[in-house]
């Protein structure tokens, strides 16, 4: 008769999954360009908003996007959080800043890491620029940009965030 101390109620069963990602035309173009160090978005023919990374359509208008727009690696903090929660197997050590960033000339934010900054000084409207990995490490991935860091430019007023031209503040 088994001792109750030997009774198990569960066992570890790891699940592994490797998948082939079919990006589709617009994201494939974006990934091809970012491998060359270029940030490339697409403009909606109807509302003129610029999407990056592009998914090939503007969900607001329901139309395909085809016109390619090359964007600078400068942008603005639209919002952010400071992540302090320890998550298993996370290579990034908390606390770290995750920011919703809008590139100059773009009309939609994406999420990236913000570094080389005092976490307590990060703010909505802050100006930032990409810090790229060494060229030889570039692949078909958004993390060719290691992180964004603050730059010495005046903050963007809230009403202007997501509405700057590709030339940025000077434009």
């Amino acid at each position, binding site marked *: 008769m088994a001792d109750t101390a030997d009774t198990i*109620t*569960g066992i570890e*069963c790891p*699940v592994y999954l490797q998948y082939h*990602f079919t*990006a589709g035309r617009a*994201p494939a173009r*974006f*990934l091809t360009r970012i491998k060359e160090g270029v940030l490339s978005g697409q403009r*909606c023919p109807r*509302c003129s*908003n*610029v*999407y990056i*990374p592009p998914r090939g359509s*503007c*969900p*607001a208008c329901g139309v395909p996007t085809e016109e390619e727009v090359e964007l600078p690696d400068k942008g603005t903090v*639209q*919002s*952010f*959080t*400071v*992540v*302090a*929660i320890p*998550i*298993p*197997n*996370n290579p*990034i050590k908390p606390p*770290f800043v*995750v*920011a*919703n960033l809008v590139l100059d000339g773009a*009309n*939609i934010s*994406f*999420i*990236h*890491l913000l570094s080389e900054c005092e976490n307590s000084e990060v703010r*909505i409207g802050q100006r930032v620029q990409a810090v790229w990995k060494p060229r030889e490490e570039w692949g*078909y*991935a*958004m*993390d060719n*940009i290691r992180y964004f860091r603050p730059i010495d430019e005046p903050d963007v007023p*809230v009403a202007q965030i*997501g509405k700057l031209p590709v030339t940025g503040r000077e434009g």
Partner: protein
Amino acid sequence: MSTLAAVVGIGQTQYKTRRGDVSIAGLVREAAVNALQDAGLEWDDIEAVILGKAPDMFEGVIMPESYLTDALGCNGKPMLRVHTAGSVGGSTALVAASHVQSGSFKRVLTVTFEKQSESNAMWALSTPQPFSVHLNAGAGGYFAPIIREYMRRSGAPRDVGIKVAVKDRLHGARNPLAHLQLPNITMQEVEESMMLWDPLRFLEACPSSDGACAMVIAAEELVHESPKPPAWIRGVAMRSEPTMYAGRDEVNPQAGRDCAADVYRQAGITDPRRDLDCAEVYVPFSWYEPMWLENLGFAAQGEGWKLTMAGATSLDEGGDIPWNCSGGVLSSNPIGASGMIRFAEAARQVRGDAGAHQVPGAKLALGHAYGGGAQFFAMWVVGADKP
């Protein structure tokens, strides 16, 4: 909608960090048996089964529905599995309701579950994609910047989230099924808890729970066969929108506003704060109470936090529109079931069967769920009176 339908049975499990005593099959069966008992029915009285849960990777069991057919008495009956991320508990209830309202079936069992202790939801939500950086920030990392934007826009005082965290845990202490039992929680304790995703603290976030929730929904002609008062389904609505598009208002999503307008119109509600007696609303992070108060039309834009701070949503403070009397998602969060728990708790209120968290004389209640990047919405209004 042709046939009138009502909730005639509700069954829940205890919600807790880990149910090591039962398998997933055992967990869903426990909720289902409780619902059948509550409805005074047997397995043979059920014509179809509608099952829901959040992503399969939350347990690492792919297509759990295929192995749960037996535990849920589906042999020889139609069975359907629903998935709409965190709102799935709500949308599953609505799929079940529509199977009865359409006249397809006269009595349907619907069950939702999550056994979060079996895997890591934070990891399961963070699968790498090449066009996005892999930051491993979890759900809180996604919603915290949206909350920060709400705080900026509304100018709400910093302690609104803390107040919601305390209020929902005091509600939860009235509900013996709630996972977190914190009857002595204080504002100071919440404020001093670890900042996980600034501005969200540990005690402002939902727990991770194991649990299941089930309901039996019957057509009007069979409602009298169950002994307890029914909860009449007075309105049902679902809406969705893309996670990302230029100009999207993430703080106050259009799909949520449209969904609420639709369900209120069906139920004849013109002023939700006045017309409803209580609401069970999906609030997994404290600040989503003031945000949804505005999205759902209980307060004007930028003013939701005023209701919270005035105690309007608190049972303990005698508020006029108590929200989440069961303790809400902040007290129990088996993700796939969390939406259905909101729908079921709304039904318990109008059946007068909510025990120590009953709103006296509740006649009309809202059940609400949202999921994905706040892109899927599911709502129903249930009433004590037949429409």
